[in-house]
């Protein structure tokens, strides 16, 4: 699938742009960079694994989705700390990580697609992104939204995890129902993935000396 290759390329582009802009990143943006790095490393690992020993990439999902939520959870812990008590966010992260371990061992095995973990994790991120938008609405401190990196990144997270919720949730069932529909859904997933990393790249590109370090304060002018 050409679109899949383009999507992977955007992951690497986001990673490279992140490397270049890293010195201007605030704490929150560095966490997002680690998330992008996780995505890039997962892609590389998956490619190597498929090439050299196993075509079934489902086991990696059981590690990637919890790790992704852990990193994104830490991101939202930073940006929402004056809005939601950190203990609530930490509780959600820890509960999710515990569930993902239980899911891998007892519910959906290592070689079954981690649909429940991915869907629940995605829902959590979706709700966190809504909370972040709510916080910004209430504070009303940002004059120009289009130049604010965290707005881009949060928007990307919102659309990506909203759009992929049912993809993850129904993956295993869809696979049994229709191969054709499964392929269409995978293409849709890949398109969302491409747009997601494109938006993150734009977010990283918006960072400069002035706004990179003041992200946490989100000040006007």
């Amino acid at each position, binding site marked *: 699938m050409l679109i899949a290759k383009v999507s992977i390329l955007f992951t690497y582009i986001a990673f490279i742009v992140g490397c270049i802009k890293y010195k201007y990143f605030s704490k929150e943006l560095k966490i997002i960079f680690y998330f992008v790095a996780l995505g890039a490393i997962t892609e590389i690992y998956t490619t190597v694994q498929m090439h050299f020993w196993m075509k079934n990439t489902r086991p990696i999902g059981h590690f990637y989705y919890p790790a992704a939520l852990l990193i994104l959870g830490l991101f939202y812990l930073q940006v929402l700390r004056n809005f939601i008590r950190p203990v609530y966010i930490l509780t959600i992260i820890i509960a999710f990580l515990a569930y993902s371990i239980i899911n891998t061992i007892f519910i959906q095995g290592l070689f079954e697609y981690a649909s429940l973990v991915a869907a629940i994790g995605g829902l959590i991120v*979706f709700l966190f992104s*809504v909370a972040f*938008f709510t916080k*910004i*609405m209430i504070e*009303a401190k*940002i*004059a120009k*939204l289009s130049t604010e990196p965290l707005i881009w990144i949060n*928007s990307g997270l*919102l*659309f990506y995890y*909203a*759009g992929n*919720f*049912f*993809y993850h*949730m*129904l993956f295993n*069932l*869809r696979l*049994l*129902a*229709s191969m054709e*529909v499964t392929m269409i*859904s995978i293409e*849709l997933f890949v398109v969302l993935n491409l747009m997601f990393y494109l938006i993150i790249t734009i977010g990283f590109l918006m960072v400069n000396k002035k706004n990179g370090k003041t992200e946490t304060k989100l000040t006007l002018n």
Partner: protein
Amino acid sequence: MEESNSIILIYFVGTFGMVLLALSIFFFFIIYQKRMLQKQLELNETRAQQQEEIIQNTISSQEKERKRIAQDLHDEVGAMLSVVKLNVGRIEKKSQEPNAKQLAAETKTYIDEVITQVRRISRSLLPPSLEKLGLFFALEELATWVNKAEQLKIVCWKSGEQFRFLNNKELAVFRIIQELLNNAIKHSGASTIQINTRFSANDNLTISVTDNGKGFELNEKLKTGLGLKNLESRTQIIGAKFKMKSTIGKGTTAIIYLDTKA
């Protein structure tokens, strides 16, 4: 088969619904944020307007009071002091005793000083030449009065033909220059202050006040001193621009630029 179809349907409808939900949240956020910022902007503008009105009213009341006091000093106190001086003069003439004569002469000298101070105070409160002859003449008169004290020297230069503009703006500019001179006299330790007034052909006025004093740290004073902020407020009210630069050991320059037509 039916189950498969429902799974497919749920997937497409669900995905579409979630994307729609995300879009709604996003656009709601954008629109709400714009409205909030708009409201905040309007609120800030209203506050700024109110603040300006308060300052204008305060300045207007101050000027009215100054005018009243200046007139009272000139018309009543000044007149009475002149009468007292005349009477003391008569006492000096008619007195036979040398001690009494000397006392009367000394008293006349003190009264002369008091009359001079009363005139100075009256002029500084409201210079009569400002309304009659214009800004530059009023500044020259102010310089003359200050130079009499021989503390320092104020030099006035003019370029271009003097033109008149609104009374309240002329008075406001005069007050600003007065304040700048007071600051320089009190704090700068300068020996010379130069006032350059430029009347441009297109009715623009530029006045610079430069001293050769010790200078000061401008950013520090802007944070802590109300005086400079008051000066800025006064210039903003009349629509003028105000700039100041100062270097430690090299003196201070303040520039006021006013488009008198605006």
